[in-house]
């Protein structure tokens, strides 16, 4: 917000913005993006999910977390196009009378939050350790990379399960419920930092011997600043690609953990929890309780994955 005393945005500033938009529109990346209809569709799907999740309280027809608004007599209603469907519940209701559509949107909110947060966490940890490892080298590098090697030999889901299990054992039950989301973010984040660290380390080792870094070193800039100002901007491309693909993996990992019942508490169902609950009714005819959250999860993950794939190809000059 501008304070009243500040001058109105000048024409030149508007021109700058317009120029930036033009640059983006005319860029190679935009060209490649618009030429790939699948990517555009994936982008639209992702944006729809993110917007719906972000504005869940305003876009959902019901609030599934408001217990007082639930009516058990509404339970097990089929989707609206089936016989006995109820127009209030587009995709039907679950075993407690919650609207499936609203629950999916709220569930996607939790899935996306956990996904983004754990990717951010993994990225910060991985990039930092990778930069240090690649720039400083020596025994610090050896220690960090051996830890990474050991961790790579375990499946990520196992590590996430381990961390979650330990947290459950250490934290008292009521505290754990409050912290469950953050424990999950931590668990998934820790299980995914290695890829960032390895990539960044590799790029850093290449960059640090280039002339501009050596020049910076000679004029006496401290190593910390060199890493942040000079090396980091030149290794962000691969990191962004990994982050996009990792987002899909993080969402799937969260869903897996919740499906196994060790993820988010049942009072805040994520997509994985919904699929688990619905699983009990799959064979008795109430297929919609598990199928719609399943489709939502698959669509979300596929869309994010396609975006990541495209980004990887688009940023790789060899594939142009």
């Amino acid at each position, binding site marked *: 917000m501008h304070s009243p005393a500040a001058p109105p945005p000048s024409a030149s500033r508007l021109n700058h913005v317009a120029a930036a938009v033009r640059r983006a529109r005319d860029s190679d990346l935009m060209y490649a993006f618009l030429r790939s209809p699948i990517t555009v569709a994936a982008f639209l799907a992702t944006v729809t999910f993110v917007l719906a999740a972000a504005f869940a309280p305003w876009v959902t027809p019901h609030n599934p977390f408001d217990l007082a608004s639930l009516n058990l*007599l509404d339970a097990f209603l089929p989707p609206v196009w089936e016989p006995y469907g109820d127009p209030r519940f587009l995709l039907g209701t679950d075993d407690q009378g919650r609207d499936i559509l609203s629950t999916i949107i709220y569930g996607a909110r939790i899935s996306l939050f956990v996904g983004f947060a754990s990717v951010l966490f993994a990225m910060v940890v991985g990039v930092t350790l990778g930069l240090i490892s690649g720039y400083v080298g020596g025994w610090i590098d050896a220690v960090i990379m051996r830890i990474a090697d050991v961790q790579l030999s375990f499946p990520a889901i196992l590590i996430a399960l381990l961390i979650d299990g330990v947290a459950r054992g250490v934290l008292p039950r009521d505290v754990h419920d409050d912290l469950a989301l953050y424990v999950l973010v931590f668990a998934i984040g820790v299980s995914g930092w290695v890829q960032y660290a390895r990539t960044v380390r590799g790029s850093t080792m290449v960059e640090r011997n280039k002339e501009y870094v050596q020049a910076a070193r000679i004029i006496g800039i401290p190593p910390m600043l060199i890493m942040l100002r000079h090396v980091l901007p030149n290794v962000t491309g691969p990191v962004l690609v990994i982050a996009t693909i990792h987002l899909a993996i993080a969402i799937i990992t969260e869903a897996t953990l919740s499906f196994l019942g060790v993820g988010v508490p049942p009072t805040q169902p994520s997509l994985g929890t919904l699929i688990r609950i619905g699983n009990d*009714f799959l*064979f008795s005819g109430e297929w919609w309780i598990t199928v719609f959250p399943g489709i939502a999860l698959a669509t979300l993950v596929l869309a994010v994955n396609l975006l990541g794939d495209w980004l990887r190809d688009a940023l790789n000059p060899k594939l142009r």
Partner: protein
Amino acid sequence: MRFGHFAAALALGVATAASAQADTTFRWAFQGDVQYVDPHSLNETFTLGTLGNIYEALSWYDRDLNLIPSLAESWENVEPTKWIFHLRQGVTFHNGNPFTADDVIFSWQRTLTEGSDMKGYGRKATAINKIDDHTIEVITPTPNPILPRDWVFMYIMDKEWSEANNTAEATNVKGGNEGNYASLHTNGTGPFKMVDRQIGVRMLLERNQDYWQDIPSNVDQVIFTPIAQDATRVAALISGDVDLVYPVPVQDWGRLEAAAGVKPLAGPEARTIFLGMDQDRDELLYSDIKGANPFQDQRVRLAFAHAIDIEAIRRKIMRTASYPTGLLIGPAINGYNAEVDSRWPLDVDRAQALMAEAGYADGFEVTMDCPNDRYVNDEAICQAVAAMLARIGVTVNLLAQTKSKYFGKVLAQADFDTSFYLLGWTPSSLDAHNPLYNLMSCRSDDTGAGLFNLGGYCNARVDELAALVEKETDPAQRQAYIDEAFQIHWDEVGHIPLHQQPLSWGVRDGIELAQRADNVLDLRNVMIVE
């Protein structure tokens, strides 16, 4: 050529082994595991019922729940407070030790040890005297005309074996003494011996060839597997992996009827599911109200009762297969009287008014303990109750856990660590005195009364009536006492009964068995006929 012979012989061998096994192995699955195989560790129908195939008591139930002699051949009530039991001769434990009066006395004493969950059984006697090796004299604290019925699940262990293995004390469900020998090993007199057990994975029983009586069963080997997931359990039955599963989720009955080779077995169970509230402490352990206990106010309890929409639970969660009730006992129990069985009608306005009157117009927060693998749709019921109570402003934090954790938290051994809970109860004696004594009497460490009165409901008149019911022999007078006690308990909303749940088993064609109303699988009655 030689290889061909060898392969044929091998194939033949495998085939014979397989067919021999297929004929006589009975596989079944339940939603949870037996926590400890110690027969005095947990007074829970599934645990005791399953152990009843390995251990035996003085008396037992037949397939129709008639009382029959078991390790005692006969009994007589010689004086109002004195019983004589004539023990069966020639019975041996699985390790070959003979069964004698000393074993009975030892087992009775063991039920009174600290970790025991069977104290309520043990305290039915003040002394047991040995007359000779196969005759005992039991002194009861008050006249008790139904003692043999009260002791159906009080299993007899071998004194010599228990002492040799240092397990003279019962395993505590609260945890801490998992090393107890009897919590992992068995030595009973029953028709089956436990030969292998992996906790939470499977239990393997083998026929006791020296069993003392002829039984209908032709089963040589029994494999029990706990399968927690409802859908998986039903799928295991339909695919032929197991011969019997229970409970079958009520929503899957149609599926079992439609599938070939399997069928659902249903009927009313003698078990009542109810809600309990901590009325004993002056401040709830798990609530945002400090310095007071809302449940001590009868209006709050009544408000809860009026807020429960039992019809919705019956129709949606139990798929019309439950029997809503206002009493802690159902029609299968001796002493049930339909005339005093009425429910509080669903009335949210009145419930809100009652809450306001009690000073909780804005409601309060309370944690609810609930098992998620013990009763039919237990967790779903708790979730529904939480939603219904939200309408009168009460925020329920649901703590639904597996039954071993749940029982380890709420029972007496853990000092009733709960504020609000869901529990189910089958009177093991099938008599109204059992819930009067265990669920509705004031808690007393001396007499063992109220051991499962987890909320600490207490009314002196109900205690008095329970004592009268125990010794009254005139049926009409006894019924009058029972009715009065249940009426007081109902007026004061001591508990909130919900319903009798249905028995819900799924069984493969070609298996003949008895579905007892107490939901106990007695392998003595299981026959594989095809």
